[in-house]
């Protein structure tokens, strides 16, 4: 009696069968475990326009990375939570992502205030939190698990000021800023320090509040003091009407703006009055590097509108994180893996849509090393016609 068994098959077939089985099992084992990355951004409420841009940037980067095979064969899975731009919700979202979804690392939140409230939780839970839009103080000083690639205004504004002063021959400025919003107020603080450092005289300082529609009173007063330029710390919602109303009053001097003014929407919202705006930022839509150009084309195609700085920084952040994740061998022990990510991230260098990027160690209140800030050179541009033109 003859029974045919596998061992009787010719040797070649045997080996192939085993090899095939091994390959299949390896392949399915690799593809089985996606890498969960938590994303907590403001998708509703007052900060939604930024949060949605940021989410888009993350999504596009994750899709690209997954299409190219993922990270060491594992796909990235984004677990997205809406923190509504409220600090309590940011805390709740973080807790859910950390303890319930068991994310490997976190991105977000959108606003600096939310970060100040929620990042300590990430630090205490020993998980990396990577902010792409937090620019205020007191964030990376929380601890060594807090990272950000958003260049702070403390780094950008002095460069903007110096470049504008030199090129446009400015010898005295007026200052106009929003005094009830964290972003515009801290922008003002940074501007003022830069103005002091560069010994630039200020003819008058005026303020407005969020939601104002009429700025003629302040602009009329500014006009009477005859400045060479106006330093403007505002978000676009107020900044665009400010530019329009200034031109209507016959105030035609250049504006030197902070991060909030860096958006192509200024050409639409301040149509006819958008010339002469100087902004510095880590990203410019006019920066024609190969990485940036392909990013802009892909984003515009996918989301039917051009990207802004928030999307660009989120996009780069995902890639930066991926570079770190590639170096991590996932052991299955969540705490250990989270620590491994924290260890691998600081050394990452990446050239993306925002240009060459590296991290720079920050210090805490006591001066000891804490989290990681962005180390990037800002680009200074000025508006002319329908475009930003980069000033060297």
């Amino acid at each position: 009696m003859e029974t045919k068994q596998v061992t009787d098959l010719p040797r070649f077939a045997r080996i192939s069968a085993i090899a095939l089985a091994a390959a299949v099992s390896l392949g399915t084992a690799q593809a089985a475990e996606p890498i969960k990355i938590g994303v907590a951004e403001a998708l509703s409420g007052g900060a939604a326009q930024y949060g949605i841009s940021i989410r888009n940037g993350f999504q596009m980067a994750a899709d690209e990375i997954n299409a190219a095979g993922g990270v060491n064969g594992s796909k990235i899975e984004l677990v997205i939570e809406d923190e509504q731009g409220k600090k309590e919700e940011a805390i709740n979202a973080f807790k859910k992502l950390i303890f319930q979804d068991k994310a490997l690392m976190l991105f977000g939140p959108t606003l600096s205030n939310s970060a100040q409230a929620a990042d300590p939780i990430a630090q205490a839970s020993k998980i990396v939190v990577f902010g792409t839009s937090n620019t205020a103080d007191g964030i990376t000083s929380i601890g060594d698990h807090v990272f950000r690639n958003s260049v702070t205004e403390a780094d950008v504004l002095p460069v903007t000021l110096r470049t504008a002063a030199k090129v446009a021959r400015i010898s005295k400025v007026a200052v106009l800023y929003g005094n009830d919003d964290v972003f515009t107020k801290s922008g003002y603080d940074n501007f003022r320090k830069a103005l002091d450092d560069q010994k630039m005289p200020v003819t008058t300082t005026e303020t407005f509040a969020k939601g104002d529609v009429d700025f003629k009173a302040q602009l009329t007063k500014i006009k009477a003091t005859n400045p060479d330029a106006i330093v403007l710390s505002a978000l676009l919602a107020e900044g665009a009407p400010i530019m329009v109303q200034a031109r209507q009053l016959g105030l035609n001097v250049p504006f030197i703006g902070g991060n909030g003014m860096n958006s192509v929407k200024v050409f639409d919202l301040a149509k006819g009055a958008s010339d002469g705006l100087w902004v510095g930022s880590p990203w410019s839509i006019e920066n024609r590097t190969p990485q940036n150009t392909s990013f802009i084309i892909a984003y515009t195609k996918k989301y039917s509108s051009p990207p802004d700085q928030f999307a660009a920084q989120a996009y780069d952040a995902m890639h930066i994180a991926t570079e770190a994740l590639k170096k991590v061998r996932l052991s299955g022990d969540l705490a250990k893996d989270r620590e491994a990510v924290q260890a691998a991230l600081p050394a990452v260098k990446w050239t993306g849509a925002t240009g060459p990027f590296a991290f720079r160690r920050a210090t805490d209140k006591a001066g000891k090393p804490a989290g990681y800030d962005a180390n990037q050179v800002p680009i200074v541009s000025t508006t002319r016609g329908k475009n930003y033109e980069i000033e060297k």
Partner: protein
Amino acid sequence: MLEQQLFNALSLGCVYALFALGFTLIFGVLGVVNLSQGAVFMLGAYAALTAINQLHAPLWAAIAFAFAFSGLVGLLIDRLLLKPLRKRDAPHLIPMIATIGLGLAMNSLVQGLFGAENQRFPSEVLPQDSLQIAGISVTVLELGIILVSFVLMTVLMLTLNRTQLGRALRAIAESPKAARLLGINVDGLFMLTSFVAAGLGGIAGVLIGLYSNALFPLMGQPMLHKGIAVIILGGMGDIRGAMLAGLFLGFAEVLSVAYIGSDMRDAVAFGLLFLVLLVRPKGLFGTVQERKV
């Protein structure tokens, strides 16, 4: 600089008055602080924007459309929300809360539909340049706003004081129960008032949207806060008071920016508000008595 600032104050004051008119009308006649008026204001702006962008309507038609659309929303709010609450004689905080909820829902709905980002009316609908008249810069829009608010106020005042309709409305403002006993069609007039007041809010939305070049779902909220200040200063429910108080607030704000300092602006405005409430709660210009329930 003074002349320019005075003109600035005039146009800002008319902006405030424009919003406050609808708001105070509802309080005067219906006795409700309708905190969804901010959302109605915003809806008018978005309605006009849609008419211009999708239907290629000229500006005057878009404004008419905004009036009708907002008016309709106001009417629905009255029928579906305020009327049932009136029927069960709810304490007046209840309709206020309900209108807050409604305003919240409408703001978020618009954000879901149109997105959170700022939009603007196309610059072609109105000439943007400013004219130089007697040394001050004046835009066509500012003149338009000033004109519209004065015309509206005059029309409303004439209606209230010289027509039978006006007498009926004033009777209701005094006491709805008594008015009903007098045979006045209180319910019908509530409907009319809701429609007109909301429609006025919608027009205000379009004009202010044009003025500020900024349309966004939450645009009604800051206006609402100013509106509350205006109706307190002007006497709640008083049309002429609202107009005068709007102008007063505009002047107070602009002149405090010009001569005290722009960061004192809100402090001055609220200081005045408090003073008025303590010394003369009926408002600086108020002539309306508190409603007898």
